[in-house]
């Protein structure tokens, strides 16, 4: 693709304007530019044993929210408290909280709504003793749905905050 296009683009770039139009000046065709392809590098995650044991509450990472709500539900409190304790006991650990929304509405507005969810989780962890320097709250908006069906159950799966530790993001 690139190979085929580049010579044409070079030709474009080299073409000079030579208008001879009697009434209207000709415009140059030299300003069309090519497109070079870039591949974005990803991040490799690696788990931490204590955090991945399915019998440990710390292996659970998601806080779910109701529609249009930015309040942590009572059933999610033990999970948030466990992670706050872990952060207090392991001050070297860093956490990234990713807020998510369902897919309805504007992508950028949903990104801001997802931020409200991650911020709420972060505030709860800070109140429970974690340090500001340990936690970054960000939003993925509607961009990384865990469930892609257009059902209420699916939308509920996607309205959540995920807590990730160093090495997992």
């Amino acid at each position, binding site marked *: 693709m690139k190979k085929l296009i580049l010579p044409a683009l070079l030709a*474009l770039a080299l073409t000079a304007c030579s208008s001879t139009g*009697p009434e209207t000046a000709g*415009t140059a065709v030299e300003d069309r530019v090519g497109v070079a392809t870039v591949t974005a590098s990803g991040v490799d995650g690696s788990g931490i044993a204590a955090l991945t044991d399915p019998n440990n509450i710390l292996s659970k990472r998601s806080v779910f929210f109701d529609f249009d709500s930015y309040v942590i539900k009572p059933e999610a409190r033990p999970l948030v408290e466990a992670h706050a304790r872990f952060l207090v006991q392991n001050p070297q650990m860093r956490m990234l909280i990713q807020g998510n929304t369902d897919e309805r509405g504007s992508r950028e507005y949903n*990104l801001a709504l997802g931020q409200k969810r991650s911020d709420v989780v972060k505030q709860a962890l800070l109140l429970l003793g974690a340090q500001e320097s340990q936690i970054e*709250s960000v939003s993925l908006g509607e961009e990384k749905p865990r469930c892609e069906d257009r059902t209420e159950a699916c939308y509920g799966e996607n309205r959540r905050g995920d807590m*990730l530790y160093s090495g997992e993001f």
Partner: protein
Amino acid sequence: MRILNTFRLFLATLLASLALGAQAQLSIEITGTGAARFPVIIPIFENEGRLPQSVTDVVRADLERSGLFTLIDTGPLPMPESVTPDLAAVRARGADAVLTGSLVPMAGGRHEVRFRLFDAQKQLELGAMALPMTPAQNRLVGHRIADFVYEKLTGLPGYFATRIAYVVKSGPNFELQIADADGMNAATALRSREPIISPAWSPDGQRLAYVSFEQKKPIIYVHTLTTGQRRVVANFKGSNSAPAWSPDGSQLAVVLTKDGRSQLYAVGADGTGVRRLAQSSGIDTEPFWGADGHIYFTSDRGGSPQIYRIPAGGGSAQRVSFEGNYNVSPRLSFDGKLLAFITRNAGRFQVAVQDLATRQTTILTDSARDESPSFAPNGRMILYATDSGGRGVLSAVSTDGRIRQRLTVQAADVREPAWGPRIR
């Protein structure tokens, strides 16, 4: 007619994809046209057969796709550009205008395309032009000729020699692609396993700002298309999103959460000199930096997401949208007269325009999942993302709601369109 058009575009698309390899192409289907279309005759240019690919086919397809013209069959009329055409005969065939042209061989395998446009009713020449070209430039030159005809006959600048950016999602892969406004010559600027959103063209059409999640959080990049060089312009603690270029291309309005909530900031296009643009107790996002000196944006400061504006140089916010309880994604037309946005109407997200002088708002679509409106550089068409059969497609609608087009890529989701500027 529509079937024929679709078929012809399909054929062109097919040939292009065979010629260029496996690159997925956008194909365009016309689903609505203007009320009164301008009948024109565009005979094949003299000596055009010397080119491997036609120029006049490109001109005709552009004008027909615009929904404002209808192509009248040339019939047996010979119309070399060097001779004033028989305008009475043109009239007799039902056409109001005729474009004649010829190719003159130049040194080094190049040609000069000379063309003239005549008004058959008033019996006068509307203009003439000559463009140099290599045989490989048939599409670009065709778009420029179509722009010339469009401007002479409608009084508005054409938008055919422009490009669009959009994001294609196929399986787990995301590609930021650039294509000509007719969907041809698609090329990938960025390939990633993580989402890419909110592409925004620099005013000079050379760079795109966008949000990439490749580092597991939203970070704003500025990407130079020719070289592929990328620069991080905002990677503060928290989320960095919604880039919008200042009209002079020196700055970007962005949304950062480094100080808490999603709020508006300005940052230099090189990533330096971040400063706050506005302050609110709620969410401020989706800035659009208008040529009218205002920054339009979405804010929920009043309880529901609505569109506001502030002077770019600082000042108090003024609410712009009033009807309904969900109005987002504002985009100002280049002449500053129309505001396009997404409104929620009985649970459906639709493209609307507001005439800023009269404050009259018109909903232009009857779909349910419209997003990310973007004006064509002449302000006549609005490109947006929507949904068709559960798949993301791009559509375009004229600001009077009459002309409609749909742009699809086979077996992939297309979203986040941005119509590039007119390059002079």
